[in-house]
């Protein structure tokens, strides 16, 4: 009986071992197939670039703008001969702004579809889980809106962001406020932010600069990303009546809700900056009510009137295809376009699609070009070659106002009254 039991347990062990080996072999095979596939592309055949974008859900406005940016870049690159002679085909799937769906999508894009290259999804929130999938397959993940510190502190070796690291987004603005004469400088400030890895790292950096300049913090609060009603926190800000409001927002509705409450409460801060939302062109103006956008600041790395030849060409193409004017082109479009440009330069320089070679090249310290300006990655994948610009709505236009320069629009301060 004991013998039988030991034979049985030995058999179980053998079967378990065999199964484990089979699973490991399948995994290794799958991954090596993906890696091998990415490097071998038949001459003249299309090269497929996969991307998961938030075409519905909370980030849908940004997701659609990103899709347009990718499409514009792919069209331009195809006109110029594609990537190493291969026409580019985009494989875009929607993640509905879900951090769960984005994982499934990259498993599909890399594991099943065997796309040769991938772009990152929109937002820091979605890039972290997506980049983990890409890393398992040894894929490089270049993005344009994934600059939150959590991306670079996650130990990921394959992730890059062509835009400015988000923690520095408010530095230019905070430095400008600190440089104002003491009599003009705001005395008090409120810092409120949505619980999001894009916004949260930005506020403490600005707060530290402003505190050093003598600006007293009267309110500092974080509100949940799932909020559907902002009136409570916005009322609290209005009641505290700070001279300066720094709002960590990821979308238009948040800034619009705060603006409406401020108007209703007859509270007009001397300066009001929001990390995202005011950069969304006419959507933003429509949501806050025409005229109320006047004087609101937003940090960004790019704007429609950016004076750079490839940027102006891209803007002209965008306006021709989707309508509107240069000032209504969303910065997301340029971020996405830049992703394509940077990856194309890496492919061209490495003469192939081998992911490890591409990753190594991107980390080599070479300065690359994008419609947003220069791109130079550090070892973490952050682009430290650009400086944040600060924009302000003035007379229906979003103009770059900080850093200040002669011949450039001056910042409107204090903010004009609500309409």
């Amino acid at each position, binding site marked *: 009986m004991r013998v039988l039991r030991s034979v049985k347990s030995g058999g179980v062990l053998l079967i378990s071992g065999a199964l484990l080996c089979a699973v490991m072999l399948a995994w290794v095979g799958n991954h090596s197939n993906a890696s091998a596939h990415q490097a071998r592309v038949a001459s003249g055949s299309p090269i497929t670039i996969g991307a998961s974008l938030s*075409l*519905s*859900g*909370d980030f*849908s*406005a940004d*997701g*659609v703008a990103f899709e347009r940016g990718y499409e514009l870049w792919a069209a331009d690159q195809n006109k110029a001969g594609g990537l190493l002679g291969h026409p580019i085909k985009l494989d875009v799937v929607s993640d509905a*702004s879900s951090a769960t769906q984005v994982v499934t999508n990259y498993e599909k894009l890399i594991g099943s579809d065997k796309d040769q290259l991938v772009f990152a999804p929109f937002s820091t929130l979605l890039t972290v889980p997506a980049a983990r999938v890409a890393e398992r397959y040894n894929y490089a993940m270049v993005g344009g809106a994934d600059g939150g510190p959590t991306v670079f502190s996650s130990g990921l070796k394959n992730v890059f962001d062509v835009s400015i690291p988000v923690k520095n987004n408010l530095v230019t603005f905070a430095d400008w406020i600190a440089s104002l004469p003491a009599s003009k400088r705001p005395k008090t400030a409120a810092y409120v932010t949505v*619980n999001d890895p894009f916004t949260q790292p930005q506020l403490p950096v600005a707060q530290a600069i402003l505190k050093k300049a003598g600006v007293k913090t009267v309110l500092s*609060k*974080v*509100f*949940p990303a*799932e*909020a*559907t*009603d902002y*009136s*409570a*926190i916005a*009322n*609290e800000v209005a*009641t505290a009546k700070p001279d300066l409001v720094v709002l960590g927002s990821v*979308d*238009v*509705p948040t800034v*619009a*809700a705060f603006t*409406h*409450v401020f*108007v*209703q*409460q*007859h509270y007009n801060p001397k300066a009001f900056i929001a990390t995202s939302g005011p950069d*969304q062109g006419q*959507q*933003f103006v*429509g*949501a*806050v*009510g025409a005229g*109320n956008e006047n004087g609101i600041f937003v940090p960004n790395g790019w704007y429609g009137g950016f004076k750079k030849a490839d940027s102006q060409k891209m803007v002209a193409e965008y306006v021709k295809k989707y309508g509107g004017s240069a000032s209504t082109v969303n910065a997301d479009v340029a971020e996405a376009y830049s992703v394509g440009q940077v990856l194309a330069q890496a492919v061209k320089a490495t003469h192939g699609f081998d992911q490890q070679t591409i990753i190594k090249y991107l980390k080599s310290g070479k300065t690359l070009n994008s419609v947003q300006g220069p791109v130079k990655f550090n070892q973490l994948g952050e682009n430290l070659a650009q400086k944040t610009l600060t924009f302000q709505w003035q007379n229906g236009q979003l103009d770059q106002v900080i850093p200040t320069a002669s011949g450039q629009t001056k910042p409107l301060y204090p903010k004009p009254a*609500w309409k």
Partner: protein
Amino acid sequence: MSGTAFLEAVIDGILTGGVYALMAAGLTLIFGVMDIINIAQGVMVILGAYLSLELSVHLGIGLLPGLLITVPLMFCLGVSVEFLFMRRLRDQDRTQMSILVTYAVAIVIEGILTAIYGVNYQQLSASYVNSSVHVFGFYLPDIYLIGFGLAVALLIALYYMLYRTKFGRAVRASLQNRTAADLIGIDVNRVRTISVGVGVAVTAVGGMVFGATNAFNPNTGYDLISRLLAIVILGGMGSIAGAMAASVFILVINDVVAAWWSPTWAPIVYFAALVIVLSFRPQGLFGRAAVRAQ
């Protein structure tokens, strides 16, 4: 937290609660009459907002007069959805299946709205959206006062219809026992169709007020549904008065906690309050048994 800030939060909670009651009323009515959990309620709110937008931007019809058009339109939508989808659900698994069916309806409506309007955010505008009245040192936003007034008026009208009219008696009779209601000559299918129509029609009003107080796009509805369901469960599923009481209760807790402690903790505290209330009154503040007996 100062007394002024506390009062400010309470007032804000009460006024915002009125807006949420408007959005939750249709949900509770449809559940009360049909045992159907309408997951599409949030998207229907947004549809109501888009209808108001269409009338105000393209036809120049104000938000309030526009309700004379959007309410009947939404009534027709409710009638169609009941006739096409809800009526086909079997009695024994209606509640469970209704979640799937109404989710499908939500996806279809969202898809149509996205195809027409895209994903850009919109917000309704009118002279009273940004104005406010100054009362005892507080600025009370006109749009929230209008929303609260509409909520009270509509909920009273619904209450009257359900509990003080022959049609309301027919509704409750068919809810309690469909066969018995059939036997005494009530056209149960007709009663149910009209009830769903009314439930969806009310949502047009909620949509208008929501669209005037928040920027929205076709996806916004999904953010609303969890809070609306919490309101309906706390108020007592099927209870119109309960929806109003629960909306105010939840929003006041939310706003006071947000101001006194932290907005991050506000939803945790009100969901904890929900659990505590349901532990003692599983039927909600205005339980279903009481609702049906009125």
